[in-house]
């Protein structure tokens, strides 16, 4: 009887440890050696590819299922601003820069749950063809919970992340994903 109780206890503890550590490692800790940082942006070049290891596959299944491989699209994700501080739903930000080297790009805000942020105007993203540009071709996109005119994407007070999609990325992005110029994310004010 005592042996059976010990066995049940060991199995329960092992399952909790195994499931918990698997979720934590796949979700937060290990994303493969192909992880590349570029300022506040981070990309995993194994996303969608057939060379991905089991942790990368698990990570992508949890956070970006059905992504395309790197020759088709490179996905950069930002959970922090250009100063390295975590994106805060109580703060407003501006994203400023020039067109990345790609056939087409878009920037989309997602909540912490990885889904689009609900807002009455359905302002979820800006893209190469919808962004309003400054003289000279650069652009400034504002992120906040309060609607603004012009280039604006709604954020969530509960926290958010930004995904930059580069469709058919150019040679410079494919060869130097960690140093090619990408837009900066600058904190403006907090409530």
């Amino acid at each position, binding site marked *: 009887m005592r042996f059976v109780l010990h066995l049940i206890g060991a199995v329960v503890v092992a399952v909790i440890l195994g*499931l918990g550590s698997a*979720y934590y490692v796949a979700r937060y800790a290990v994303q493969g050696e192909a992880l590349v940082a570029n300022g506040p942006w981070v990309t995993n070049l194994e996303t969608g590819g057939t060379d991905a290891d089991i942790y990368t596959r*698990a990570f992508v299944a949890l956070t970006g*299922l*059905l992504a395309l491989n790197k020759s088709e699209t490179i996905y950069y994700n930002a959970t922090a601003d250009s100063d390295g501080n975590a994106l805060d739903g109580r703060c407003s930000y501006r994203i400023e820069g020039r067109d990345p080297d790609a056939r*087409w790009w878009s920037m989309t805000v997602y909540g912490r749950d990885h889904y*689009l942020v609900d807002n009455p105007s359905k302002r979820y993203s800006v893209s190469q063809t919808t962004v309003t540009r400054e003289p000279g071709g650069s652009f400034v996109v504002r992120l906040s919970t309060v609607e603004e005119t012009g280039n604006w994407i709604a954020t969530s007070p509960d926290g958010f992340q930004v995904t930059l999609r580069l469709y058919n990325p150019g040679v410079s992005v494919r060869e130097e994903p960690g140093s090619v110029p990408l837009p900066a994310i600058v904190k403006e004010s907090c409530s």
Partner: protein
Amino acid sequence: MIRWTAWALFTLALAAAVHWATVAFAPELIMSRVMSGMGGRGINAIRHVERATAASRKVVKPSPDLLYSTCVFDVTRAPLKVTTAAPEDTYWSVAFYAANTDNFFTLNDTTAGGKPATIILVGQGQALDPQPEGTLIVSAPTTKGLVLFRTLIDNDAREPELDRLRRDAKCEPLYYR
């Protein structure tokens, strides 16, 4: 003391096995759940998805700038014939995913030369004799999986036109044995 050490080692070994199995099989389980949701109207048939909003919760990180169409496939009994639509002056692609989430083949408007393309997806051991002319033959690494069609909405005013054009795409079994 030895007995407790043995129990601790047994627990850790079991935890490691559960950890590995969870990481290794989670993608297939998640993919299977997503395919079950998408294949509600039948497998080997195309389904056109509404433009993503905050209410879209079937797949994480949907792009609000794309029109998605899906086809859950099962090539156990027959190859799958996929015909793309070819809207002009915008990006479109058709991507094939295995049951373990791998994106094993993609064709886009540039690689297709801006024209509609026909792709035959064959399962393991299936042979096409003769090979249909003007088609691309792709081997499926798993019998079940998903085909995802993407059409870029480069301008909101074009959405109705692009929504109409994407419906030219087809996904159907090539034949039944």
